[in-house]
């Protein structure tokens, strides 16, 4: 292939500092430009579906919590709702709000984590450190409410396993109030830093059509202009009772993905 096209193959992974999870990418590059990509996944496949078949409905939330460590509310959230749906169980109002609260708290921590890692990958370690510094109060709140920093084990078919104590509320409020200023600061820093813009604008563009064709979801699709947020369009728990904006952007490049997450 060498004579005709000038592509070189760069293997990335399965173990590479860029990735938190083992995956294998074969990049076909021409100079510094990626022209083709082959993906090999499955380094994380642990057969959770099969394992779950052996468990009782009450054990499954603990197992599915371990699908993903960064999003350890979303999978049990879905699992308990499926179980409740099958069993026709009504969930108390307060439990719905607690679930929503946990889900949103996790969103904050996950987006800060994303921002930090994005900075880290761009060689901007200060952004990483700062984002993760301000992520700690979120984890503290989790620890206060659920007893663990990650893998909260809060979800249970029919409700939640622990209530939020009245004594804990002022502390949690104080921790979360302290987040507002740093978050605004991040919005300013990321959206205005010229070097960050130079690195992320018009890079990795996922157009609206491609996004629909490939079935991308979540913040990635919102960055490409798909106005879809399951919290708004298909509300569960208490999402129909709380107010929030769904942010979509048009370009679908890395910069827009950051905008959507902030």
């Amino acid at each position, binding site marked *: 292939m060498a004579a005709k096209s000038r592509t070189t193959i760069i293997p990335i992974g399965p173990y590479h500092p860029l990735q938190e999870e083992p995956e294998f990418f074969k990049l076909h590059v021409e100079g510094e430009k990626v022209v083709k990509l082959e993906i090999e996944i499955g380094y994380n496949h642990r057969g959770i579906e099969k394992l779950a078949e052996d468990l009782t409905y009450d054990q499954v939330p603990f197992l599915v919590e371990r699908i993903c460590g960064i999003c350890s509310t979303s999978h049990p959230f879905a699992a308990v709702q499926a179980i409740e749906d099958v069993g026709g169980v009504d969930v108390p109002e307060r439990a719905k709000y607690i679930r929503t609260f946990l889900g949103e708290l996790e969103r904050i921590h996950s987006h800060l984590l994303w921002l930090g890692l994005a900075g880290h990958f761009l*060689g901007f370690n200060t*952004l990483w450190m700062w984002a993760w510094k301000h992520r700690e109060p979120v984890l503290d709140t989790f620890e206060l409410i659920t007893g663990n920093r990650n893998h909260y084990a809060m979800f249970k078919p029919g409700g939640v396993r622990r209530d939020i104590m009245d004594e804990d509320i002022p502390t949690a409020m104080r921790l979360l109030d302290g987040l507002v200023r740093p978050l605004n600061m991040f919005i300013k820093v990321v959206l205005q830093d010229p*070097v960050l813009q130079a690195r992320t604008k018009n890079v990795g563009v996922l157009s609206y059509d491609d996004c629909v064709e490939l079935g991308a979801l979540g913040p990635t699709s919102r960055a490409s202009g798909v106005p879809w947020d399951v919290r708004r369009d298909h509300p569960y728990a208490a999402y129909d009772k709380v107010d929030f904006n769904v942010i979509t952007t048009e370009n679908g490049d890395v910069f827009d993905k950051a905008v959507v997450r902030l």
Partner: protein
Amino acid sequence: MGVIEGIGYLAGGFVVAAVVGMFAHWFDRKITARVQWRVGPPLFQPVYDFVKLLAKEVMVPEGASRFLFLSAPLFGLAATTVVSALFLRTVIFPGETFVGDLIVVIYLLTIPSQAIILGSFASANPLASLGGSREMKLVMSYELPFLLVVLVPVIKAGGTIRLGEIIQYQATQGAVIASISGVIAFVIALICMQAKLAKVPFDAPEAETEIMGGAYIEYSGVALGLFKLTQWMMMYVVPLFLMILFIGAVNWRQSWFNLLFAVLIYIGILLFITLVRNTNARLRIDQIMKFFWAMVTPFAVLAVILAFLGL
């Protein structure tokens, strides 16, 4: 100059550069940590790191050229040591330098980069060769403006290419930096230095998170230790070079305060390097080239023209 004297200068240059370089590396990490709300490593951390690397096993990757792979770090280290020895002599006896040492220093300062390129291609790893090719592009981007701005003090000092004369000129006529062309040239030199030391935003060749340390990816043990040491010594040599060219502050013969002043300026330059690297993201290599050729080089030309006009 006798052989023994020469060896003495080399040894002295090596020790000074190693000690100051290790300090500079520690300083860099410490300031980085402070900027990032952290405490940072202890003072002797670079020493521990280096000793540890000496004790580690050296692995030569399969398919690599053994000789080139292992000798590449030595080239870089040797070149840096010679430069450091030259500076030592220049600083101690500004009057006794040989003609053209400025050119020699400029050439020697590119050798660590060549060593990195050599080592990365010798290690037969696709990511390393990517790092090597980026290093090459980086060298191509910053060398031209760097050479141009080096011309400014040369022109000012009446066309001499002896470091000693440049220092003596500045001792009598005032620092080069105290003129318009000097200021422009110094700023450009600082930018080029950032690239020469491969610090963010110009660290594309060794981008830790993109190409896993690039050229260094396959190195381990002593070889890696020598590369790291070279890198640290460069953090002493390059700022000192700029100080000699533009400030001339190392003229301790006039008064001992000058020495203190020089140390302060050196720390100031280190601080500048560290702060710049901590408040910026890494640029892509094509952006770096564009930046140097389209933005920095014209200013460098301007500085040279201004120097000719005597400004």
